[in-house]
């Protein structure tokens, strides 16, 4: 955990070729996220059982399975339409807090996506993050998905500002997301169902931050090329 540089794409470093942020690239991102959620389904549920209601893995897996099915028949060449399909499918199938929050993330990202370069992608993800914060009325430190997404967006923006390429910047983002996820362990939850436990919510990683870290990790893998 926290070793975001350990995945196969990392070995390629700056030599990796970025997948352009087009419909195919975004579809690859979302498909990789679905694969990770399916693989980590039981772990996400285990984390949710500790401080929530034991359904996060099952719900997100059900939603992302529906997303992959929807994308197979969806518009192949419009990047914003891909993200919008992801959003509406999640809102229609997940329920709970994860459906509206992940749905809002992709809906806002779709609305903000303007162009196919790294900067456009970073701006879209930032808009998604702002949407999640507004919908959930949460802020970093509340022990939610924001604790992984916020440092990831900050790291992505900083790396791109330094002139690093998208694959490299996404690896930095994935590392920051994993760090943010780990940093939720000692926190007392202030939002969501875990907040009902008060002090007892400390000592466990937040399930939302954990799945959000998978979302960023998926971007690093799928949009880095070569892996």
């Amino acid at each position, binding site marked *: 955990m926290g070793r975001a540089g350990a995945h196969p794409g990392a070995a390629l470093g700056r030599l990796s070729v970025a997948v352009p942020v087009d419909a195919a690239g975004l579809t690859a991102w979302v498909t990789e996220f679905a694969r990770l959620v399916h693989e980590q389904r039981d772990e996400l*549920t285990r984390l949710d*059982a*500790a*401080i*929530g*209601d*034991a*359904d996060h893995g*099952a*719900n997100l897996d*059900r939603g992302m399975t529906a997303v992959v099915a929807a994308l197979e028949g969806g518009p192949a060449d419009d990047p914003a339409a891909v993200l919008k399909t992801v959003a509406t499918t999640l*809102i*229609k*199938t*997940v*329920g*709970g*807090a*994860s*459906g*509206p*929050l992940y749905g809002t993330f992709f809906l806002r990202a779709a609305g903000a996506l303007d162009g196919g370069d790294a900067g456009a992608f970073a701006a879209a993800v930032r808009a998604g993050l702002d949407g999640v914060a507004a*919908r*959930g009325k949460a802020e970093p430190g509340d022990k939610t998905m924001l604790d992984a997404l916020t440092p990831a967006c900050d790291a992505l923006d900083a790396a791109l500002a330094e002139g690093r390429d998208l694959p490299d910047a996404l690896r930095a983002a994935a590392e920051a997301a994993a760090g943010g996820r780990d940093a939720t362990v000692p926190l*007392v*939850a*202030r*939002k*969501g*169902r875990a*907040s*009902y*436990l*008060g002090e*007892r919510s400390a000592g466990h990683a937040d399930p939302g931050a954990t799945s959000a870290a998978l979302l960023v990790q998926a971007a690093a893998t799928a949009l880095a090329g070569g892996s």
Partner: protein
Amino acid sequence: MKKLLNDPADAVADALRGMAAAHPELRVDHETRVVLRRDAPVRGKVGLVSGGGSGHEPMHAGFVGAGMLDAACAGEVFTSPVPDQVVAATQGVDGGAGVLHVVKNYTGDVMNFEMAAELVAAESDTEVVAVVTDDDVAVQDSTYTAGRRGVGVTVLLEKLAGAAAEEGRPLAEVADVARRVNATGRSMGMALTSCTVPAAGRPTFDLPEDEMEIGIGIHGEPGRRRVPLAPAREVAEMLVEPILADLDLTGGDGVIAFVNGMGATPLLELYVVYAEVAAVLEKSGVGIARNLVGSYMTSLDMAGCSVTLLRADEELLRLWDAPVRTPALRWGG
């Protein structure tokens, strides 16, 4: 996990098939997972829509019928319904007088009902008012939490606001009754065991034989604290006293007292608890005007109970006594 299921993934769909077969007075839309009164929409009557995660049966679909809810949306187990379901239910019960959404205060329920209300407003001229229940005194510091959970008061509210709607009162008045019930009702729950979510396949938490959880919600989540197992008399005190302190009930006040089972606790034990609750109230000078004892808002196979006290006045008692005809609650008429 030892449960009477086919595929755990089909638990909710299969339960709705059973409900449709058992209750021809209801109309079950399996596509949207909405349960409606067969005669919905009732022309000129405010429609009442509630819903939430499944696993709390008979809440909410068991309260659909004359004098209570017009429709209920069934989410996945312990997961709020999606906006599409709430939109379908709202449109299905709008008899021209508007629709009241009864929402329990959980992040997911509140967000999905809000999104649904926005969609309804964008698509039609149906007037929607939402009332959020948040009666759980176990959650105190709402500045640092998502706020108090909606628990037992929701059952009483659906009965009382349902009666007001059945009388033909306008949406604003039905909503006022709902808000007043929420403002004057409080609950506190406890668990003797965890529950097992079908999709998870194992108990949500481990609870040793000699301990219990105090201050639980209705989703199998642990409570605010774990304490040594105590006799029913002491448990009743642990549940009633925080409510009395919070409601500021004093001598002379009459209440509707509701002892609710969490799913796996026999009625014998619930009556033992009710006797102790009544004794604590008598000592405090609080009279019980009406009562309800049974498993109405459950947490799958969790053992335990909750106590809800609602300060009653003449109007609320009249609405309580009004006829109700639903699968899980029926009297009068």
